[in-house]
């Protein structure tokens, strides 16, 4: 494929004059006339001298037989000729064997639209970059500019945001619903239930995370003897669902619903979110603390 990066300027020049140019009846000449792209819908017709070669970028999508363009050899020529048909952003680079072109052109013409569409489908999967820069439909699929700008995520964990309660309809700030139990599956399912419930009642859920597991060894004293015997190793699991913006009138209702669905053995604790809660999730740094203590 003829990829020429040096041609970028010419391409730009070409793209800058999309429809301003009246469709010139003469076929595009060779050797780079920036302005003469020919009308958008002008096929090179029988003039095989129209050796129109499209830049690789403009080609990638080509919905008629681009798949041919993938293979080497003759196919690029076919591809290019076909693209000329569609009126893509053409650019004259150079011409090659004209006879070959004629044949290729005839072949491409002969190809049924169904086949070409099939080929197109295959290629669309393989590569997808539509660049009709000269057409009014350029950038038709863009949508990212409509989405709200996301702040770049820093590597460091950002501290929580506490909402200030203002107004007549008082709202609570960040609230943690902490569920603790020895049974992991139960506590996880309950956390899922609470999360879904909050979604359904349009209560904003900030985060839903798990606290580190605590392991306890339970020893008991034997009846006859002073030796402590290992009874069991229990793991305590905790899940937290953090909500915010709970209105004061709705809070008791939510609590009521959660309580009525509380399973056995799951301990519920609803409290306001504090920095200490956040810090308890982080690893301890004894060296740093030592140095800070020494400093002070």
């Amino acid at each position: 494929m003829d990829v020429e990066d040096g041609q970028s300027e010419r391409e730009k020049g070409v793209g800058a004059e999309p429809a301003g140019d009246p469709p010139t009846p003469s076929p595009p000449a060779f050797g780079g006339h920036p302005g003469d792209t020919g009308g958008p819908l002008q096929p090179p017709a029988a003039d095989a001298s129209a050796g129109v070669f499209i830049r690789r970028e403009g080609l990638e999508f080509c919905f008629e037989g681009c798949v041919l363009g993938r293979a080497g050899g003759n196919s690029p020529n076919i591809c290019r000729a076909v693209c000329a048909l569609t009126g893509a952003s053409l650019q004259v680079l150079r011409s090659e064997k004209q006879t070959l072109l004629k044949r290729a052109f005839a072949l491409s013409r002969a190809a049924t639209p169904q086949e070409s569409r099939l080929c197109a489908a295959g290629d669309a999967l393989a590569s997808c970059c539509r660049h009709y820069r000269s057409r009014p439909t350029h950038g038709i699929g863009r949508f990212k500019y409509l989405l709200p700008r996301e702040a770049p995520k820093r590597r460091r964990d950002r501290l929580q945001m506490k909402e200030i309660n203002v107004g007549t309809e008082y709202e609570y700030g960040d609230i943690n619903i902490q569920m603790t139990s020895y049974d992991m599956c139960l506590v996880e399912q309950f956390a899922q239930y609470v999360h879904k419930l909050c979604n359904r009642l349009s209560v904003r859920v900030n985060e839903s995370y798990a606290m580190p597991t605590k392991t306890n060894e339970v020893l008991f004293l034997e009846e006859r003897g002073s030796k402590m015997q290992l009874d069991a190793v229990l793991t305590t699991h905790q899940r937290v669902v953090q909500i915010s913006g709970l209105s004061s009138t709705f809070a008791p209702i939510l609590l009521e619903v959660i309580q009525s669905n509380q399973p056995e053995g799951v301990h519920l604790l609803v409290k306001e979110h504090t920095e200490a809660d956040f810090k308890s999730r982080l690893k301890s740094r004894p060296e740093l603390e030592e140095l800070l203590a020494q400093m002070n």
Partner: protein
Amino acid sequence: MFLFFFSLWLPQTVQFRGSHWQTSLLAFKASLPMRAQPKKKKKVDIKREQAQKDRMKKKIRKLEKAAPEMIPIEDFMTAPKYSDSNRVRSLPPLSFEETERRVLLMKKWSLYKQKQDEAEKKAIQTLVAAQQEALKELRLESEELYQAAIRRDERLFPFERDGPNYTPPLPGYDPPEGKCIDITKVYTQ
């Protein structure tokens, strides 16, 4: 007498002279060392202390630059022995009646749960509607009370509740003595 004094005097002088170094040293100690040591104390120690402080500050800054990491949660880490591909449960094939029974049971159960869920949603709606109506009436009654009712309850949180139990606690149960040791793994950064 003069001799005596002289003798007295001489040995002293001799002593002095014998240890003239000493006298001179003493003199030196009186003069130069007395001047030099406090200088050393002031300069060197202060410098050393400052250098130490700077080093500590640098270390602190370096450590603080590293982002704080979250403690890994053991719940989410499966032990490799459980993800061994050799562990395959071989279940016996079920009879037709059994599968039918299970399918029908599942349908009944899902219907029951659906009814339960709908009832819950309805209950929530009625609760909210009743609350709103009550607040409206209260507003018509007195604005002050309405404002006070709207305000959030500070004593609501923290709210704690233990889940229900399968069985109530046994009366008069004497548990054996024992203790609980916390063997949670401590992660440090």
